């Protein structure tokens, strides 16, 4: 707990959080670019998500008459919880003071808090779409959470810590080790990440048909700066999952000390890792079709199976007789 008073650590946390928040729309823009290239369309420019957010900030806010103050509070809660998750996950440097304050289980808790308020806000307007969106979102989340926790368990059983900084430190110290449990946990986390961030094949983020929406149905009533906050939070969540997966399973490149040289190298390796992950995601979104809602439990059962196999591999194969 001594490094809580380390000013340099807190500056890095601030830098990292600001980077996260500012780079998230860029990642979304890059994904749209990739999908457009794959679908033989011309793509919007990389700065388009930023321009969308700025435009929404300036627009007027219309609020439904049936809503309560909860509706106006919810975007801030959702955004704040997502920013807090961005402050815990090592982006450029391994040792963060915030990792001791909130570990990986608290990270899942933050995301759950944001989702709770989002679901409540969608029911606040008293429309059928809001109820539908929140019912579907909570169902998908409740099935994804055991898979995510089992995958996290598998990783923490090896790294012997739920503190993300300590876990990555341990893994970096081990070098390149081919662990089957990690392979399965990676697959499980990738499937869960797609479900939780609302991408194809679980949910289509660009759909206009209300009956096919999950996340979009929940923010249907929002406008102006509230909608900007919700969309920004969704983009930030995608980046959070991407960085979590790339920095836990492929931590090489992260800076162990905080010299500017290492930080720059770490930034470059982060860009590289995120580009590879976004290519994988763009390919998946282009090749796969969105599943109907009642096939999503099978998909999440597959994620849980991978996580379970990862845990079994760890206990049977890796931990010795």
């Amino acid at each position, binding site marked *: *707990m001594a490094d809580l008073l380390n000013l340099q650590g807190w500056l890095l946390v601030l830098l990292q959080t600001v980077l996260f928040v500012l780079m998230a729309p860029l990642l979304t823009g890059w994904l749209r670019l990739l999908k457009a290239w794959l679908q033989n369309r011309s793509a919007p420019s990389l700065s388009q998500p930023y321009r969308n957010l700025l435009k929404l900030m300036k627009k*007027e*806010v*219309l*609020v*439904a*008459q*049936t809503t*309560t103050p*909860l509706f106006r509070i919810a975007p801030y809660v959702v*955004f*704040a919880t997502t920013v*807090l998750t961005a*402050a815990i996950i090592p982006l450029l440097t391994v040792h963060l003071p915030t990792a*001791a*304050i*909130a*570990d990986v*289980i*608290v990270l899942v*808790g933050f995301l*759950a*808090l944001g989702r*709770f308020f989002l*679901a*409540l806000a969608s*029911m*606040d*307007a*008293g*429309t059928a779409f809001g109820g539908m969106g*929140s*019912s579907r979102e*909570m*169902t998908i*989340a*409740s*099935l994804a*959470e*055991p898979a*995510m*926790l*089992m995958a996290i*368990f*598998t990783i*923490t*059983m090896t790294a012997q810590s*739920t*503190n993300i900084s300590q876990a990555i430190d341990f893994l970096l110290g081990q070098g390149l080790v081919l662990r089957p449990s990690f392979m399965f946990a990676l697959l499980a986390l990738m499937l869960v990440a797609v479900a939780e961030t609302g991408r194809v094949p679980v949910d289509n983020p660009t759909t206009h048909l*209300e009956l096919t929406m999950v996340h979009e149905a929940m923010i*249907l*009533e929002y406008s102006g*700066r509230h909608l*900007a*906050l919700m969309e920004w939070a969704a983009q930030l969540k995608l980046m959070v999952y991407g960085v979590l997966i790339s920095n836990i399973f492929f931590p090489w490149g992260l800076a162990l000390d905080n010299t500017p040289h290492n930080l720059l190298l770490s930034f470059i390796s982060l860009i590289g890792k995120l580009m590879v992950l976004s290519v994988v995601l763009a390919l998946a979104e282009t090749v796969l079709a969105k599943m109907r809602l*009642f096939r999503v439990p099978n998909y999440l059962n597959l994620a849980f199976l991978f*996580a*379970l196999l990862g845990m079994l591999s760890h*206990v049977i194969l890796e*931990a010795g007789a």
Partner: protein
Amino acid sequence: MTIQWIACAVLLSLLSGGVGLGASYYRALLRWACFPLLGLSGLATVIAGFLALLGDPVSTQLPLGLPWLSWSIYVDALAGFFLILIGVVVFAVAVFGPGYTREFQHGRHSLAALCVPTGLFVAGMQLVVIANDAFMFMIAWELMSLSSYFLVAYQHEQAANRRAAFLYLLMAHIGGIAILLSYGVLAAFSDGFSFELLRAAELPTLWASIAFALAFFGFGMKAGLVPLHAWLPEAHPVAPSHISALMSGVMLKVAVYGFIRVVFDLIGQMQVDWGVIVLLTGSASALLGVLYAMQQTDIKRLLAYSSIENIGVIFMALGFAMIFLAAGYPKLGTLGLIAALYHALNHALFKGLLFLSAGAIIQQTHQQSLEHMGGLLKRLPYTGTFFLIGCLSIATLPPFNGFASEWLILQTALQGVVLENGLLRIVIPVTAAVLALTTALAAMLFVRLYGISFLGQPRTRQARQAHLPSFGMRSAQGMLAALCILLGILPAVAIKIMGAIPQTLRGLPAPEITGQGWLWLTPASAASASYSAPLVLLGLALVWWLSYFLLHGRKHQQVQRVPAWDCGFGPLSARMQYTATAFAMPIRRIFKPVWLIDEKIERSGDEQGFHTSGLRHQLQVSDRSWKWLYLPIGRWVLRSARLVSRLQSGNVRTYLSYSFFTLLFLLWLIS
């Protein structure tokens, strides 16, 4: 000191019951005498509990009981903790009571039938926790069960309520017999019935297992573990809401206390198999409890099934503790025990809050079904806010208290890697995943509960015209909500105060969870896992304030209120919203084998299906344990009773021959 405060508390609650005898004649006695006395009793209990928790154990003998077996009292840290739990909820209920029972004052039920059993009920629970011999324990247990039966049967005109009360009484007594037998097994190997003698008894392994099984069955039935839970969802909705809060928040925890006292303290040995059985039963209760709660539309039945879920979680933590203790890891056993106790306290607080709020809603809208509520946040803003805090706490979201205890339980499960038994190292992560599924489903459940009842548009006229409840009702809820927040932000302080509990139980080591100070929870070591709730709250507040400050609209940008988006088809009616049944439909479809579902859809219209003039949907979701366990047992009991009743042939000569053969047998024995 402690003894005086405890005696004061028990006498006050008995007095509150006694005064209630006159409440039928002098209505004002209820408001000005019964409930205030009960509140004072609650305060005295809390003070006594703190004194016991922070000081040394005290014991004394009472001049009551049998001549050769007088009652003895023993108040140690564990008893003190549960006394605090009882006292807080009793105090809140006492503040809530006068406003809530106003409508009973002009009803046809006798007020004495409400007052007297309430006082006896609270006294019974207090006496159970401080009992130091099996005799006093059973007397107090019976007092608790019987008085709550009268409370459950308070509104006895409806046959359904009478049936629910009868089922409750029946199962309370079956459980009581099991507990008595368990004490009997323990006493067979010792010299007497007092807990000191029972503690000193040396039991062979087989008999220890039998004692454990009986205690688990008896206390589990009272706590509401699946499959012994059938009475809970029947009895809790039927009782008046403040009594439901007492039953769900406190009585179930007294059963947990009894289990801990017998298994961790009196039996004196611990086996891994017991821990595994407790863990698996707890997991099944947790998952099935939340799944059943998901399908309920009656708000109190939903909360009752949710209590089953949380009791399951508490027993899961106790199961982890037992496994670690039996495997030779006392520090981790302590961790599990503290996590279980902390969750018990948190559950008492937020379930009490939720039931009291439900009582306020029911009083104002006269509706118990979720499908008839809606938009209540505008009519009942205080109740709505406090209910939201309760929902956030029970859905285990940071930074509230439910999250802190769930975090501790998951950290306990993570320590399972130290065990050598490979099979246990597989089972423990799987049960942790079941816990994660349960908490995620609980979050969905409370989104459904809060969203359907408080948000959206009102679905009935009564919901549209609800009024603010009385000040007492609101302040009781506010008090419990504040405690939920406080225990969520300062878990380390609470756990540090609880630190004496494991040491009084067979010398378990003190917990090292708060080794880094009041800010941090560090269950295993500072490097491997830590959580700081105050700093998390600070972070949340900081980011929220920053984003609000930077992004909040300027003065000239007003927020306009317009009708909700209706696809251009015209105004939305309240019937177009999602109903509670609709919200839970995906879960109903995915987990279909769990319930007994009877769904009928009738379409009226022309034959080919082109024009439909009406659609009727009927859905009944019922508990499988009835069909598989309770009804077969009931049938078997009736069949054996019929067989036995053949003994009563009514013929005088048959009865004379019974006496004749008995006489011959006795003569043969003597010779």
